[in-house]
């Protein structure tokens, strides 16, 4: 048995606003909410002294104490269950999955307890379940998941995934204030991406859950997407612009409940749509959106709605395999060219 020695290391309080990456934006958001509201607390594995595997919760324990920054055993079921129990008492838990892949170990309590409490007996579970998702970082089959499709068929869970630092902060704050359970997916490839570093406002702002945004305006074609694929779509749009194709990129931001009016309006304007996502194609959210477009925008469509997703395989590890697995800019460009020919 060794003597436990805690290093004297204190992270300073993050400034409000200023230049921030996506991970810094989320940390700012959680920090500000914990300062604003004493019922907000953090629970998860290694979230305390260590500050979380990706340092999202770095420094919180020094400022808010171990009663509000709770390190747990490796028990996702206990994390989700305890978050639900605390929410019943009026607390606002921000529960972390170290990687969103491990959400499967908390699946039962999320889908059966958190999601159904309000419906069954009026006890809304106001809790955030957050963690790093996404592939493209050579992390292999167990640290690369996009989990949204597991939960889209469960009524009672909101699902959010930001693609900018501004949205990340505004959405995490909105998620913490939301009266219902919110799954908050953070694409780990975006955490420290210099391209996403931006100036955040110094005021207390939220980004409303359930509202998409236009990431790029265009006339000829809409790419409906979210998360890291927003960048892929924007890069494809830039390339297509050189070919004279004016592409609109719609960032869903919230996957449940879907902002139907936003993408219906966009597609009714452009008359052509690609749904792009990083999760496997079969059973992905792309199918749902394509079905909505077929049902509700049929008369406005000038071409088939195309889905672009990853392969129907686990996420492979080796770079050439993973690159083949993931949708690439060229896949989007090719699909757009085909649609343009209609």
């Amino acid at each position: 048995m060794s003597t436990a020695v805690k290093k004297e290391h204190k992270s300073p309080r993050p400034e409000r606003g200023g230049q921030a990456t996506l991970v810094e934006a989320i940390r700012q958001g959680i920090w500000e909410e914990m300062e604003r509201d004493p019922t907000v607390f953090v629970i998860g594995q290694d979230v305390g002294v260590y500050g979380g595997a990706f340092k999202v919760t770095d420094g919180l324990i020094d400022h808010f104490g171990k009663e509000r920054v709770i390190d747990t055993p490796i028990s996702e079921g206990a994390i989700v269950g305890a978050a639900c129990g605390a929410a019943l008492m009026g607390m606002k838990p921000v529960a972390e999955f170290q990687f969103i892949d491990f959400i499967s170990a908390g699946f039962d309590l999320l889908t059966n307890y958190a999601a159904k409490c309000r419906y069954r007996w009026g006890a809304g579970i106001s809790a955030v379940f957050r963690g790093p998702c996404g592939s493209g970082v050579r992390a292999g089959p167990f640290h690369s998941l996009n989990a949204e499709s597991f939960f889209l068929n469960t009524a009672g869970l909101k699902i959010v995934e930001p693609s900018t630092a501004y949205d990340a902060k505004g959405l995490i704050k909105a998620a913490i204030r939301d009266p219902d359970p919110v799954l908050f997916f953070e694409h780990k490839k975006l955490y420290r991406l210099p391209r996403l570093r931006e100036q955040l406002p110094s005021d207390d702002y939220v980004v409303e859950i359930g509202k998409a945004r236009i990431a790029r305006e265009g006339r000829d074609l809409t790419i409906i997407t979210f998360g890291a694929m927003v960048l892929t779509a924007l890069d494809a749009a830039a390339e297509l612009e050189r070919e004279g194709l004016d592409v609109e990129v719609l960032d869903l931001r919230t996957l449940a409940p879907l902002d139907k009016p936003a993408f219906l309006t966009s597609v009714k304007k452009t008359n052509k749509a690609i749904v792009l996502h990083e999760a496997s194609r079969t059973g992905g959210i792309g199918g749902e959106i394509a079905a909505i477009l077929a049902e509700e925008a049929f008369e406005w469509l000038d071409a088939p709605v195309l889905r672009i997703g990853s392969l129907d395989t686990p996420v492979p590890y080796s770079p050439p395999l993973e690159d083949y697995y993931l949708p690439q800019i060229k896949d989007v460009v090719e699909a757009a060219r085909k649609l343009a020919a209609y």
Partner: protein
Amino acid sequence: MVSDAIMDKNQNKAQTGKPRRRRRPRPRFQMRVSTKYAPRKPPEGEALSCTTDTSLTPEQQVELYRYLQLTRLVEERLVNLYRQTKVVGGVFRSLGQEATAVGSAYALQPQDFVTPLIRDLGAVLVKGIRPRDIFAQYMAKAWGPSGGKDLNIHFGDMEKGFIGPISHLGDMIPVMTGLLLAARMQKKKFVAVAYIGDGGMSTGAFHEGLNFAAVQRLPLVVIAEHNQYAYSTPTSLQTAVRDLAEKATGYGIPAHIVDGNDVIACYEVTKNAAEYARRGGGAVLIEAKTYRRKGHAEHDDQRYVAEGEIEWWEKNNDPIDRCRRFLLDQKVATQKKLDEIVAEVTQLIDEDCAWAESSPLPDAEVAAYNVFDNNLVAPAFRPKVLES
């Protein structure tokens, strides 16, 4: 282990100036299973009664009898309603094991929380939920606490300290752990009791929840009702331990074994465990040894039960018989008084059942409401086809 500890101590001495461990180490754990109120064979020729080693007043002892009768008679009424096809789902009985739920819940204070299992109707009633709510739930009525959205005791009342279970066994253990974590942050003091069965203890959620509660030293009392069957599966196919209380060792918490058919013993053991938890001792496991005389639900023919087993328990170890015998032998109550209790309880059940039967079924469109807070997200109505 001991030599390791000595070496550690010597090392610390040798390296003075090195930072010392900040947390007080826990005492080396020794298996602690109290069997003070465990089942005992009665002296030859004597029938089983209840323990006389109790702090309960005579009035409280009589009240326990009332709750036992209330539980059994509510369930018998539910069976009648089921046979009249007025119950929409199944009926789950606690026949023969009512004392565990009643005695343990009776030991709690008003601010304490319980989460029962389906066979703990007694605990729900002791916590102050009215029989009419139970009848309305079983009959899927609009006036039931869940408005027809969920079954039986699957609802909750935070004011009364009752949190309904879900069908997924074990899930409520981490939920109660979360309740207690919140209480610690809110500087509230209460104990939470979670019921589990010999089957439910095999789930991952049970393990994760109890382990976490033990690590955090939260005042969680887990009552393991060892009623011998999980649906049709006997305990021998569920676990390799003989006494479920042995499992406490794996969590570093103390345990009690109690005669689950002795309502007073169940009270005393739970009171003791709750006090230990309330004092800051942390989680406790109680194994209540009992027997499920009915099947999993009313449709279950119990073909898996050995011949004569149910009859033996009915004849020799019925919790209500034992309580009645105790009250009469100890001259705490007369047979007349006990008859009056049954009459009073029956009248309450008649009234509450009539109320529940008079409730309408819910309006169909209620199904669309309250998935989310409808101030923020519209109800999930069935979409109109091809209308924009």
